[in-house]
């Protein structure tokens, strides 16, 4: 399990954009989804998701709206077209990077 309260550089953005590409979510939901899809490998100080979301929204990659569901009001985030383009870029960069590292250490990272 990798715990980094300062948010692993670049990794959270990729995960956040990828998960929000499927459906809109609010912060708590997103954090639990990150834990789930990574098999608890990536565990982060949960509160730090919000500055990351605010930053992506300030960049135009996300949009937010307040929704009340089952009597609870939450701010939901979703991808914008710019966010989808950014997801493609970040994913491509990540694949290139991990492939290069795999070659360097003599082990393929992506099969």
């Amino acid at each position: 399990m990798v715990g980094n309260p300062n948010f692993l550089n670049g990794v959270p953005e990729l995960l956040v954009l990828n998960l929000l590409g499927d459906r809109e979510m609010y912060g708590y939901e997103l954090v639990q989804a990150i834990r789930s899809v990574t098999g608890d490998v990536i565990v982060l100080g949960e509160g730090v998701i919000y500055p990351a979301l605010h930053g992506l929204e300030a960049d135009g990659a996300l949009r937010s709206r307040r929704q009340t569901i089952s009597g609870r009001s939450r701010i939901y985030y979703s991808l914008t077209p710019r966010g989808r383009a950014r997801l493609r870029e970040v994913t491509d960069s990540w694949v290139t990077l991990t492939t290069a590292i795999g070659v360097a250490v003599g082990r393929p990272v992506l099969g």
Partner: protein
Amino acid sequence: MVDLLHTVRQRLLNGGVPRRRVERYIAELNDHLDDLTEALSDGGLGVAEARAAALVRLGCAEVLVESMMSNRRLRAWPHRVPWAVFVVAPALVQAAGIGLAIGWLVVTASAARTAPVTLPAFVHWGVPVLTVAALMAIAVRSRVAFAWPFAGMSLVVVLANATQLNLTVTSGQAHTLALSVGLPSIVAVVAQGGLAALILVLLRGLGARTAFGVKE
């Protein structure tokens, strides 16, 4: 929990994050704590235990503050570019004021007048004092260190008192518009500076009690 969120809120406000963004962040953290506490409680923990565990998982104040502060895009403009807000912008306002004053002098020139026409005192004093008041209000609200607002205030006061506009109407259609720049009157600088300082003291006092800021 109240102490954690209060600490985070105060440090972010003092660090130059806009109030609206801070309040949204705190509200989201609060909701997150509630959700996490409920989930942990459903998992078998007692309410108090669940709350304590949720606080640990949320993160400590340093981490929560640093993750917001480390992103410059999320900070208010007076903190991001204080030189532009407190020095360049007021200088441009003063220059625009001089331009408007020239226009006013030309428009009000009358062939029947022969005495020199100068700007009314309320313009000569009002524009810089209002500019300084605006600077101080921004500084108090955004909790900027005093150095930049003081530099801007000094620049405004000196510029306002170093420039004199006079329009002399001669006979017939001839007018002479003179814009002179010289050493500012020490008395005027001190008087306007004192007035600006008084405004700052009043605003800081108000800021401790109203939406301008939270009393520390």
